[in-house]
Every structure is written in structure tokens, then in C-alpha cells.
């Protein structure tokens, strides 16, 4: 199978999975739903519509034979990995530690050679954003190592 059919295949699997899950949803008594639809009907209808469109898309691919898409450079995959790192740092340490680390590493990953510039960006940005949201917009941030120190 050609790589170009990977997208229609993923979309088809997704649509079928949604239909399968929708079929497991509870049904409402007739007296509540009346002449209207059950909660499952609309998502199933959408997915059937989507499957038809996926069929048309696959036919277009077959007819036009689009070029395969080149794989991205390490910057893109690295950035996605940093999102994962951000998740782990936020859950296990503190959201602002996560932001600091991600900004710093992303700057370096994207080609910033001056370490001090990356460090300053990683320090000043979350600092300013924190001050704005905390003092002006009165947002309470999630507790973590730093926020526990701040909120007490």
C-alpha cells in the first residue's frame, strides 16, 4: 500500500472507532426523546458522512497520485518532544519550571547559539506573563514547587 493512503486509512479507522463507541452509548426512554434523535444518532450520522468523503478523497488520491510528503527536520520532532517534557515537568514539578525549561531548550533547538539570550528569554517571558496574570488578571496558577513557595 502506498504511503499516500495512510491518511484515509487513519481517518477510516478513527471514524469506525467513533461509530463503535457511539453504538455503546446509553439510549434514552422514548418519552424523553420523543420524535427527536437518540444521543448516538448524530455522531454516527457524522461519521457515515465522513466515511463517504474519505472514499471520495481516496479516489482523488488514486486519480491524482499526490507526491509523498517529506519528513520534517529534527526541529519539529524535537519541539513535539518538548511538549511531552513540559507535561512531565508540570505534573511532577511546576508549570513555570516546565515553561522555563521548554523555552530555553526550544531556543537552543531552533538555532539560538547565545546561551545567555536563551536563558534571558526563558526567564523574562514566564516572569512577565506570571506578573500580568497574577496581579492584573488575578489568575491562580496550579500548585507546584514554585507556586507552593509563592502562595504559601
Amino acid at each position, binding site marked *: 500500500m502506498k504511503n499516500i493512503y495512510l*491518511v484515509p486509512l487513519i*481517518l477510516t479507522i478513527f471514524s469506525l472507532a*467513533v461509530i463503535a463507541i*457511539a453504538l455503546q*452509548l*446509553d*439510549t434514552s426512554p422514548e418519552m*424523553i*426523546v*420523543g*420524535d*427527536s*434523535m*437518540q*444521543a448516538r444518532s*448524530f*455522531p454516527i450520522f*457524522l461519521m457515515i*458522512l*465522513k466515511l463517504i*468523503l*474519505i472514499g471520495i*478523497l481516496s479516489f*482523488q488520491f488514486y486519480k491524482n497520485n499526490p507526491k509523498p*510528503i517529506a519528513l*520534517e*527536520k529534527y*526541529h*519539529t520532532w*524535537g*519541539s*513535539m518532544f518538548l*511538549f511531552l517534557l*513540559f*507535561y512531565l515537568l*508540570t505534573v511532577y514539578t511546576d*508549570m513555570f519550571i516546565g*515553561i522555563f525549561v*521548554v*523555552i*530555553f531548550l*526550544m*531556543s537552543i533547538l*531552533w*538555532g*539560538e547559539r547565545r546561551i545567555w*539570550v536563551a536563558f534571558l*528569554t*526563558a526567564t523574562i*517571558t*514566564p516572569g512577565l*506573563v*506570571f506578573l500580568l496574570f497574577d496581579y*492584573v*488578571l*488575578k*489568575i*491562580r*496558577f*496550579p500548585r507546584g514547587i514554585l507556586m507552593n513557595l509563592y502562595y504559601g
Partner: protein
Amino acid sequence: MFEQAISAMASVVVDPYLLGLIFATTILGVIIGVLPGLGATTGAALLLPFTLTMDPVHAIAVLATIYVSATFAGSITAILINTPGTSAAAATTFDGYPLAQKGEAGRALGIAVISSTVGGIFSVLILCFAAPLLARVAYEFRSPEYFALTVFGLSMLASISAGGAVKNLIGGIFGVWLSTIGAERVTGIERFMFGNYELYEGLHFVPIFIGLFAISELLVQSKTVNKIVNTVSMKAVKLPTLEDYKKIWKTILRSCGIGTFIGVLPAEGATVASMIGYSEARRWSKNKKEFGKGSIEGIAGAEAANNAATGGAMVPTMVLGIPGSGTTAIILVGLMVHGLRPGVYLFTEQVEKVYQIFGSMFVANVMFMLMGLYAAKLFARVSLVPTQILWPIVFALSVIGAYAFQGQLLDVWLALIFGVIGFFARRHGFSVAPIAVGLILGEMVETNLQHSLKMFDGAWWMILTQPLALMFLVFAFLGLCGPMIFSWITKQKD
């Protein structure tokens, strides 16, 4: 009503806080517009959480100002570095950059500024007159009409510029499906929540939009790291001469009409408007050969149309609750968050606020004209901010903005997940705007279909007996199948 509208619009000028806010946001909007990748939609998505604590009028004024000023500012980099700051300015590069290369960058920018301002102001005036009239028509709408209208809105996704029709429709349906996550509104049955009760009320638009527009753009920009940019030098912005005006006034007027009309169409936006404005300018021009080599008519045609689309796109957004573009989808969310229910009631119960918003858009158009004329050179330098500094900052604003909306970390994870989904969608030629529009319209479609079915005792075909509903459904059918039918007829004739 007229007096009330005028006094509400005038109140913008005498409110120093609002004026200051529009001024500051115009500067921000122009900066956002000149930074390649950070267009009006991304800018509005990032700014939305900052507007949460503002007064409703101020909040919407901020978002609307970002919309008009960033749409204009995309032309600055389009002319000076051949990189459109926003997709709406893509057509401006065709003639703007060649003219700049001839040493007339100042003249090109002057034409762009004047055309954009005329386009913007024209569309705000149309908005002031057309929106209340359309609201009166919409007063007659019931569930079948609203259902048909939203179907029409979704069908228009097929013609959004980026991505193919089929891909856009798949994206739109995915967006509508996202709106079904959470408890079903009539029966309360939980759908696709997987035991996560934070999703009981459904997915909220703000984190999803931040993910789809800002985070996905960050990943797209990661592909352009180390790109070398060639800039064109410029002394100062030059106002068009009388000779220039004689050459372009018809083009500007035509593009004003085209842009406003395209903007009014649900799901169409400034990008489509500028492309059509440009091609129509070329079609009607006596100097077709100049196009692509630095034609001032080309610049005027594209720029007047894209800014005219901003006011036009606000019409369906505010009157019908159907966004006219990606950015107006965010403005629509802003209206909802601030308790301003889009639709007829907005024009009957909160007229003053509506006209203050229109007034703010008017003022924003004048302000970006002044900034374009006197500070374009300065703003152009902003575009040279290194990507390795800019995009990590966007990351910080995105995650904190997503969190700030409801104060829950789930929204941050959703923003990141939808950022990755948006990136892969774009990688494979799917535009993210249809997903956003589908998400907004999803609830409207389902709820109005349910109400219609109840109204007609389950006889769905009775929807077709309602004249307005039938008209919208015919439009939807033509929107979807019209191009295919016409090309088939043309082939048969040939």
C-alpha cells in the same frame, strides 16, 4: 435607533480608556501582522484569555482591532520581504514586492495603506447598515431555518482557500463531531468523555483554538528555522499621487464590494477576498501586462478586498452566530464568553454595545492608517525578530492562555494535543479553520435539528417545506455540487 447608533459609535471617541486600548491593540495587531506566521487568527487566539477580565465592549474591541490591524499589516512584509505576514496578504506579494524591488517600496506601501483603510472603513459602514437589516430578517428564523443556515455555513467550508473541498469538509465534520463530546443537551447522556467529568460541559473553544491556530503554527514554523530573508530598503512611505488615485479608485471601489460580499459569506474570509480582488483588478485593468511586475492596481485590488472582508465577516458572526472566517470564529467565542449572545437579541437588547464595537472597528481602521503611513518602516524591522526567540515566547503565551481560561490543566493538555493534531492536519493539506468553524456550528446544527424534528413530529422532510430553510439548503447544495455540475455542463458543451 439611528440616533442611538450614532451616539454609541461617537462614545468610542470620547472614551479615553477605550481609545488607549484600541491604540495599544493596533500597535500589537500591526506587530502580529508583520511577524510571518503570527496572523490575525493566531493573534486573536493568543489574546482572547487576556480579555477575560475586561468589559465586554472593550474585550471585543480588542479582538476586532487585532483582526483589522493584523490583516492590514500582513502587507508590510509582503511588500518589503516578499513574505506575507498573513495569508490574506499573499496576493499583495504578486505586485508589492516587484514594485519594491524597483525602488518604489514607499509608494507600494502608501497604496496598500490607503486601499486597506478605504476597504476597512467601507466594510464597517456596510456592517452598520446591513447587520440590523439582516437581524430583522433573522427575527423570523426558527429551528428549521437555523438548522438549514448552519448546514449552509458548513457547506461553505468546501470553498475555503487552503486545502481541497473534500479535505475541508472532512475537517468541518471532525469539528462538528468534537462538539458532541460531553453530556448531550436534551437527554444528558455522556458522549465520548471516557469518565473524564471535566468534559461534561463539552470541549471549550478557547484551548482548542489556541492549539489549532497558535501551537500548530509553532510546529509549522519549526520547519522554517534558519530561513534567510531578503529585505528591500525603503526611505519613507509615500502617499499615492493624484495620478495614482486616478488609476486605482475604480479598483479600490470594486474590491471594497467584492471583499465585503465575500466576507459576509459564512466561512469565507480575507484570503479568498484578496485573491478574487486581485484577479478582478487584473481582469478589468487596461494595463494587464503590468500585473506581476509591480502594478499598483494589483496592490490596491488585493489590499482593499482583504480589509473590506473584515467588516463583512462580522455581519454573519454578530447577526447569525455563524463565523465569517477563522478570526471571527474567535471573536464569536469572545462574544459568548462575555455573555453577548450573537443573534437577533444582540441587536434588540444590546444595540449600544453593538455600535460601540462597530465604532471601535472604525477607529481601528483610522489608527492603522496613521501607523502604516508613519511607522511602517519601524514595524517592518519587527519581522526580523529571530524565530528561535519569537516562537518559544508564543509557546509560553499559549499554555498560560489556555490555562487561564478556566484555571484547569486539562485545557493546557488539550491545547497541546490539538496543536499536534492541527500540525499533522496541515502537513497533509487539511486547513484547521474548518475544524474551528465546525466546532462552533456543531451545537447549533444538532440542537436545531432536534428541535425541528420535535416541531414536525419526526418528519424531517417538513424542513424542506419552510421557504427560507429550503433556500439555504438549495444554496448549500449549490455550494457543494455547483462547481462539479457547472464543469460537467461545460465539458458537455465542449
